[in-house]
C-alpha cells in the first residue's frame, strides 16, 4: 500500500481569509513573532501497489483538474509516503519498494 500526498496552496497573490483568521488568533494564545500564516490543503491518495510512474501521472492529472483550481491555487508538492514509515515499523520489502520510488 502506498500513499501519495498532494499539497495545494492558494497562490501567493490571493488573500487567504482562513490564514488571516489563524494569524489573528495566535498572539491571543501567546504565540508571538509569526508575521504571516497561510492555510492550504493536503490530500492523501492511497493505492494498493507501488507508486508507479503511471500512478504518479494520474495523481498529477487529478491534482491539476479536480484537487486544485489553477485560477487561485498552486499544486506545490506531489510526493510518495509510505504509511509504514509513520508507524515506525522496520522496512520490509514493500516499504523498500515504495522507498525506492521516492
Amino acid at each position, binding site marked *: 500500500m502506498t500513499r501519495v500526498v498532494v499539497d495545494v496552496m492558494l497562490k501567493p497573490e490571493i488573500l487567504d*481569509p482562513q490564514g488571516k483568521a489563524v494569524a489573528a488568533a495566535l498572539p491571543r494564545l501567546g504565540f508571538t513573532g509569526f508575521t504571516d500564516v497561510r492555510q492550504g490543503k493536503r490530500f492523501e491518495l492511497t493505492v494498493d501497489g507501488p507508486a508507479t510512474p503511471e500512478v504518479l501521472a494520474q495523481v498529477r492529472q487529478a491534482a491539476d483538474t*479536480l484537487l486544485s483550481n489553477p485560477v487561485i491555487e498552486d499544486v506545490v508538492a506531489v510526493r510518495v509516503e509510505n504509511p509504514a514509515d509513520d508507524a515506525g515499523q522496520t522496512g520490509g520489502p514493500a516499504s523498500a519498494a515504495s522507498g525506492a520510488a521516492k
Partner: protein
Amino acid sequence: MIRIGVVTFPGTLDDRDALRAIRLAGAEGVALWHGDPSLHGVDAVMLPGGFSYGDYLRAGAIARFAPVMAAVIDQAKVGMPVLGVCNGFQVLTESHLLPGAMIKNNHRTFICREQQLSVENTATAWTGAFKPGERITIPLKNQDGQFVASERTLDQLEAEGRVVFRYQGWNPNGSRRDIAGVTNEAGNVVGLMPHPEHAVEKGFGPDSEAGPRTGIDGLRFFTSVIAQLTKEGALK
C-alpha cells in the same frame, strides 16, 4: 413557450424559487437533474444557489463534473443562455465558462443582506431589460463570495465590458473591483453572487421605494432572456 431549465445538484437550495421565478416571468420552468446528461430541449439553463455536494473541496468544484454539466458546457459554447447564481456562479467559474474564481468572504463570515447593484452591461442575454447604469436591489447571501482574478484578467474584463454587475454602497465580500457579476465573451453566459430569483414577487422581495418587500428587480433577469429567445425564435 420559452422553456428554461433549472439544475438541481445534491445540496442545491434555490431550485424551487428559481422555477417559480421563471414561471412568474412568463416562461416554463423545467427541472433538470445533475445525474441526467440530457437538457431535455430547454432554451436556456439556470444553475441556482446552494451548497452543491456540500461545497467540499471548493465551492462548485465537484458539481462542475456532474453528468448534466457536460451538456451545459457544450450548449453554452454554442450560444445557449446560461445564468449562474451564487453557487451556480461558482460552478461556472470552476467549469471555466466564466473567468476568475470565488474564495471566502474577506470578513470570513456568512452574509445575508439586500444588496444594491449597478447594471454595467445590458447587452447580455440576461440583462436586456435593464437600463445601462441602473441601480437595482437584489438579495445576497453567501460565504464564499469574494470574486478574485489576476490583474491582467480583471483589466481584460473591464476593457471588454464584461463586468455585468458591480456592488454599490458597500462591497459585501471583498470582491476585486466591486465585481458582483461577469459574462463570457459572447454575452450568453452570466454569473453573479446575488439572487435575482428572490426578488420577483411583491410581498416577498427586498424593500424598495414602493414599500417594504416590494422589490422585484430580479424578475427582469428572466424577462430579459425570454425577450431575447423570443426575438431569436421569430428570426429563425
